[in-house]
């Protein structure tokens, strides 16, 4: 045991962040060192007065144990020089605010660090700012709001965000005459709208519904109500019924319908690199790629488990899905072979209701689960980086249903009705992703 603890190894430290670079000459360190000891060494080499925590990557995987254990696992020799890449550690997310709601939060989306749109089961869409003020409470849905999506910043469109509801409509909201109001209602789905996504250039959006279809809409407000289009088809009684509180809202009809899912579609997202591509997941255990322009189902990948949420990262070009089997799966949409599931991350103890990629990292993603925790993952490491438990006792064990990662903010909400806002240290902006390498 003594000899083992005294065993040493030559390592070469490499940094991609130039401000933290150290000389690349190999140094000899004990094999029993872990992340903390290595971090101390780097800080010492850099001469930092305030130590900066670092994480270390060996062969593209985070070092989570001692160097000797890593060598044993990877089967490499202690004689060789081990190259360790180090990056600044992500600090644990800290809860900075919690906004309370009366009812369950079903969805959350942040358009800017100062504006959060929250959809709730009481059918109200609320707009919050960073000062914990509820800017608006918007009520136009007859039933629970299931999803919200905000337009990307710099939008020329009037639409600020879109909400989808169990009342089978999606309503686009915008500021009109200095007041935030419903611009139009997208009607056509025959069952609850489960997900909505706006494309990065703010021209179109898609909605996924429990009626097993995905519909494709233009974001622009219609000149006039398109009820007639719907009435031509099959929805005549609905328009009659709608004579009521929200009759003034213009109706918008879908451009196209993507049908192929066998069962409810639970989630949809745009391919941020390719505008016309949409990824969707549903109860039929499939993850499908669609071309919205032509309405063609490009690929279908099966995984045996219900897909609850889908998110695509432009940096890593991977799709993350949350599943009913308590795991997060990563898919490579470009690969053709059947084993498209690249990685399965399992640590949650309940349905993974929502996943979100870090907006500026190729490796980081967060997932929210019914077990009430948010987990932050780095795909280079199997176990999660951080598990964020609710700080408030009343939130403990309450299901989380919504998650959004906007810049350095991680927003989550669910059964408890409190919108939990976490700060993620923005220093961890790893620009060196595969997207750039490719």
């Amino acid at each position, binding site marked *: 045991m003594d000899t083992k603890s005294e065993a040493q190894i030559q390592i070469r430290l490499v940094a991609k962040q130039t401000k933290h670079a150290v000389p690349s000459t190999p140094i000899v360190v004990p094999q029993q060192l872990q992340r903390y000891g290595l971090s101390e060494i780097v800080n010492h080499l850099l001469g930092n007065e305030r130590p900066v925590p670092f994480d270390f990557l060996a062969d593209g995987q985070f070092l989570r144990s001692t160097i000797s254990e890593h060598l044993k696992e990877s089967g490499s020799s202690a004689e060789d020089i081990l190259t360790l890449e180090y990056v600044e550690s992500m600090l644990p997310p800290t809860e900075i605010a919690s906004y309370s709601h009366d009812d369950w939060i079903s969805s959350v989306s942040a358009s800017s660090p100062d504006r959060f749109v929250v959809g709730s089961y009481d059918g109200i869409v609320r707009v919050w700012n960073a000062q914990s003020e509820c800017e608006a409470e918007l009520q136009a849905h007859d039933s629970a709001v299931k999803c919200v999506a905000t337009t990307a910043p710099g939008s020329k469109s009037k639409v600020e965000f879109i909400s989808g509801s169990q009342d089978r409509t999606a309503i686009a909201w915008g500021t009109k005459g200095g007041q935030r109001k419903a611009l139009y209602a997208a009607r056509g789905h*025959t*069952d609850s709208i489960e997900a909505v996504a706006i494309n990065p250039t703010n021209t179109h959006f898609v909605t996924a519904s429990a009626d097993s279809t995905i519909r494709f809409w233009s974001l622009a407000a219609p000149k006039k109500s398109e009820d007639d289009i719907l009435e031509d088809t099959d929805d005549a009684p609905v328009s009659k019924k709608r004579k009521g509180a929200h009759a003034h809202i213009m109706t918008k009809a879908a451009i196209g319908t993507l049908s192929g899912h066998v069962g409810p579609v639970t989630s949809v997202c745009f391919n941020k690199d390719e505008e016309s591509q949409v990824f969707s997941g549903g*109860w039929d255990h499939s993850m499908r790629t669609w071309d919205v322009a032509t309405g063609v189902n490009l690929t279908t990948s099966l995984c045996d488990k219900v897909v609850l949420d889908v998110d695509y990262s432009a940096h890593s070009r991977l799709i993350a899905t949350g599943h009913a089997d308590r795991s997060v799966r990563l898919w490579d949409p470009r690969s053709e072979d059947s084993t498209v599931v690249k990685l399965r991350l399992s640590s949650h103890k309940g349905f993974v209701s929502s996943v979100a990629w870090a907006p500026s990292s190729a490796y980081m993603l967060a997932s929210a689960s019914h077990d009430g925790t948010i987990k932050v993952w780095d795909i280079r490491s199997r176990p999660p980086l951080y598990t964020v438990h609710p700080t408030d006792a009343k939130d403990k064990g309450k299901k989380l249903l919504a998650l959004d990662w906007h810049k350095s903010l991680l927003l989550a909400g669910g059964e408890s009705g409190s919108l939990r806002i976490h700060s993620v240290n923005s220093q961890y902006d790893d620009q060196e992703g595969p997207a750039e390498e490719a």
Partner: protein
Amino acid sequence: MAAGKGSKKRSAAAKSSSIEDEFPTAIGNIDVSSESEYASDAGSDADVISGSEQNFEDVLKAMAADQGFEAGSSDEKEDGGEESEIDDEDMRKLTIRDFGSDLASWKAYRQTLPQIEAGYASDSSTEDTPNTIGNVPIAWYEDYPHIGYTVDGQRVMKPAQGDELDRFLENMDNPDVFRTARDEASQRDVTVSAEEIDIIRRIQGGDIPDAAYDPYAPTVEWFTSQTMKTPVTGAPLTKRAFVPSKWEHKRVMQLVRAIRSGAITAPPPRAERRLYDVWENADAEPRETRGRPRMPAPRLALPTHEESYHPPEEYLPTAEQRAAWEAKDAEDRGRAFLPQDFGALRSVPGYERFVDERFARCLDLYLAPRMLKKKSALNADELMPRLPDPRDLRPFPAAEALAYVGHTGRVRSISVDPTGLWLLSGSDDGSVRLWELVTGRCARVWTLGATVHAVAWCPSADVCVFAAAVGSRVVVVVPGELCDGQKRTVSEDLVRAGFSTAAAEDDASDDALPVSWDVPPTAEQATGMHVSISMHKTVKTVAWHRRGDYLATLTADEGGGAVLIHQLSKHKSQRPFRTLKGAVQSIKFHPTRPWFLVATQRYVRIYNLMQQALVKTLQPGVKWISSVDVHPQGDNLVVGSYDKKLSWFDLDLSVKPYRSIRYHKQAIRQVCFSRKFPLFATASDDGTIQVYHGMVYQDLNQNPLIVPLKILRGHDIRNSLGVLDCLFHPIQPWLLSSGADGTIRLWT
């Protein structure tokens, strides 16, 4: 003969002085015939009595000179001697063969040969007095000229004797007179030599007579006086040691001759003795002896390094090991000794446990089994049915995913809508709740005011309708917010259509049925309740036909009135059975055939509704049936009972159960099949749900495969009631269960 002649010569010489006539021939004979042969006698005489012999020679010479021819003969003799010396080399070459038959000349030649000096001068052993008269007084021969006789009978003449004067003169002249004595036997004077005097003196002095003998010569040690480890002898070898034994040679030759002559012949060859290897078959298979296999004795274990008298160092115990060994009890020690190093085998002392171990070995042998006992080759694993690994039978519900919390009473019944998104539950707290299945969100609550015994979604995909048994009535509800406008309209139309038709036919219908189709109060209508079917007794069960138009109810009535079938579209009710034996426990529409199942307390009866006939009566062999469910393909059904038993029936096979399973510890409340997966589950009062794999094959010859998969625990037991209802999700391999603890749980 020769000696006789010699003595004759001497006597002749001695007598020559007295009787001259007889002598010449005699002397001549002596000289010619045997000069060489008597030399020894002459020598010996000279040795012993040399003094007197000298005298005789002188006398003889004088006599020869007197006779005249004596000289001639001596000349002749000398001539011969000279000749022989001259022709020595030539003469030597002549042998008797050279003479042939002429012996006389050979004899003559021989006399010319030189005399051979035999070398007997020192030998006195042959000295013998020629006189043979014995021990008689010599005085008897005083008067005779002789003094005795030789062995040949010849006279031995008296030597010439001088007178007294001669003797005196001689004594005067002779310096050795004092050493001279008279030998009467031979009548001669004998002079004793100085050596003889010395010997006489030694004898008289008691010394060793031999003057040359040295009694103090150093000892020759044939055997050393010192003590040696390997003593050697310095003794000279005997002759026998290096000469071949004559007697052995003789004996060998005797044998050789005997062998040659055939007296000794070789013995007949002996038959070779066969040697048996006792251990030849020691390692072979035990022989069969009279049908019973012989059992070899148990073998001793081979010794190991530890038992060596000089084991390698690593086998020697350390001090701690030794202490630990000694601290243990004898039976815990493992081995009865500690390895010891003795260095050499000769240092090994006696083994003190030897007798113990021999005795133990003897006991082992004595108590060893003598017979092989045939063990049954069966093992328990082989007797067990070969079931596939549950891991290969995935997916099946294995863990709790969600709990739907909200009910305050027992949740008696649950139902999932055909799309699988919504869950309905009816509870003792008088409410029906609608849940969003994935999130567990309670979307709606209908408070109905009475115990809800059953809820059931209409299985038709076209409509969105459910029925709930509330107290003694059944309400039909259209939950409007779940469906779009068109479906809602269709549903509402379907539910309400009957009012008009029923009103028209109402009078014509048989009023005997205690059923009334009512329009619920307005407040209830706002919540989606459109029809209320009232009956006299509490409604226990609601079962939909797969088409969604017919609805069967089971009330607490006795007899045939308990089971009613209602047609929703026409608001008509009918009583299919006029009489029913036993208390009905459960009713079910068959999923594929126009059959209707009625489970009474003991039997399950299957009726054909179209032919109005009994198809089959199943006998589960249980005391109290609780529930029944039909496999979606229609050929199999399971029956759960309050006596913990689950029975699987193959309808094509028999009216007796194909398989009976009793795994629950308490009564089974509910059994259910999955519509999509080969799964079924049982819910029990012991708070568990057991999930089984129940595969029905298309091949009719293959029996269904039933594999227990999982026991799901989670529900609390309240008042000895556990899980009251269970249900598979219509699309996913998920299970929903409701319990007496007021919760509903989703298992995935």
